[in-house]
């Protein structure tokens, strides 16, 4: 059984349908990319999984348990970390406080210290910024903080919403390298990206979302090779 199974998800904003029968699964240890145009429903899918919005229909099963009716706080406790669109760091709090909040569900001080060192080893830049208000960080540093913060809950599944958005090409490389590293250390990843080529480059499998529906699903390699996906999302034929 997959770690995460989403089945037939419908979601609405008011009367506007955002998701229509979205089904996807993420197996333990995978990096799964969810790609698609703006407004296709990628962020909505993640928000439904983490409980920030309630799906009108469908099931979300994590680790064998239906989490579709649970609140976001409980879903974090069950092991899903979510680094949201736009980073959403607590700008008026220090980097350290942000990381402490990331560990909000955890109670052991020793484990906190261990996780703290672990994420700072992944994001050494943050160590120099610990006492700084996170609103004063650069965009790339804020993205690192958002990811580090999500990792502080020691999630089994880490969901990343557009981690490379607005970053310089060098930083984009860093972020993707880190995602791979996080995955190699044992965290399953569900990744939303505009940057489809990069995302499929590190993913095991991928889904393409078009106006609220899954249009394609396949291994990352097959999606990269697919004519239709290349034309729409990978900037034409030149792969």
């Amino acid at each position, binding site marked *: 059984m997959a770690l995460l199974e989403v089945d037939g998800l419908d979601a609405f904003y008011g009367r506007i349908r955002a998701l229509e029968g979205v089904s996807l699964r993420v197996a333990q240890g995978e990096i799964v990319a969810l790609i698609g145009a703006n407004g296709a429903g990628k962020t909505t899918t993640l928000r439904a999984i983490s409980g*920030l919005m309630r799906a009108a229909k469908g099931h979300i099963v994590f680790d064998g348990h239906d989490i579709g009716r649970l609140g*976001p*706080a409980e879903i974090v406790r069950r092991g899903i970390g979510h680094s949201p669109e736009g980073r959403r760091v607590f700008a008026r709090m220090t980097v350290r406080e942000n990381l402490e909040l990331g560990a909000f569900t955890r109670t052991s001080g020793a484990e906190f210290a261990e996780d703290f060192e672990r994420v700072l080893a992944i994001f050494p830049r943050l160590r120099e910024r610990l006492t700084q208000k996170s609103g004063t960080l650069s965009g790339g540093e804020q993205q690192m903080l958002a990811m580090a913060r999500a990792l502080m809950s020691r999630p089994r599944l880490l969901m990343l919403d557009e981690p490379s958005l607005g970053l310089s090409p060098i930083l984009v490389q860093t972020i993707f390298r880190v995602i791979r590293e996080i995955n190699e250390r044992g965290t399953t990843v569900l990744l939303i990206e505009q940057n489809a080529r990069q995302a499929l480059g590190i993913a095991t499998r991928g889904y393409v979302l078009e106006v609220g529906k899954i249009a394609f699903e396949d291994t990352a390699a097959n999606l990269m090779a697919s004519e239709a996906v290349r034309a729409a999302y990978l900037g034409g034929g030149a792969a």
Partner: protein
Amino acid sequence: MDVFFQQIVNGLSLGGIYALIALGYTMVYGIIELINFAHGDVYTLGTFFSLAILTGLGVSGEMHGLPLVGVVLVTLIAAMLLCGLTGVLIERLAYRRLRNAPRLAPLITAIGMSFILENVMQLWHGPSPISFPEVIPNPAWALGGVEVSAKQIAVIGLAIVMMAALQLFIYKTKMGKAMRATAQDRDAAQLMGIDINTTIAVTFLIGSALAGAAGFVSGVYYGTTWFFNGFEAGLKAFTAAVLGGIGNVAGAMLGGFLIGLIEAIATQYIPGGAQWTNVVVFSVLVLVLIFRPSGLLGESLPEKV
């Protein structure tokens, strides 16, 4: 000059009460962006609860030494608890289900809640002012030509202790950090595993408990209360919160003391005195809002709770 310093002491006492009330306005605004119009009435309820507890304890006049300390602590803590629970109940019954409604809906509900509390209190003690027993004896110490009474020391001291405790809570405890996080970004806070219902309830608990403390202090200080007490005090405390920068905890404290001082000074030095006090207080507010729309500390220390 003595008169001036005397008014400073009076203003600080008054300001301590405003500051305690203002904290509740600013904390609730910070976390759910609601101007809780019922908050002034929770403060009045604090005076009523305090009186009921003092009566229940059989206190009818001045107390001294250990019994005085005991009575003050018991009454204060009980009034804070009762007001705190009232605040939690108001949030649970009236505001929570409107959390995602258009902003006007909870605002109108808050005004309705205010009417309900006022009417309940009117039923409880009638429409006329009721008096408090003189619990704290009234020796006053002369510092130069300035007279400082035991009550004033108690009021100012208590306000400062409460504020220090609140600061510690907000910055040093896990729940305090959860409150600040929720105030800054509710969705992101939920993604940290913070239960925002609990966090918002705790915010109401603390804000209303501080209003309860203000109620106790004001009852003992002025020796009187009535059901409509919270209207003007609430308005001034709200003004204090806006003056300091609504949503900003340090700003509410500063604003409270400033309003108290302005009121005391204006009463003394403006010809015609007391009648013009409110005009001066609200004129200062208008001026501050013209030149610093976000309040005195609104930008320099933007820490919402």
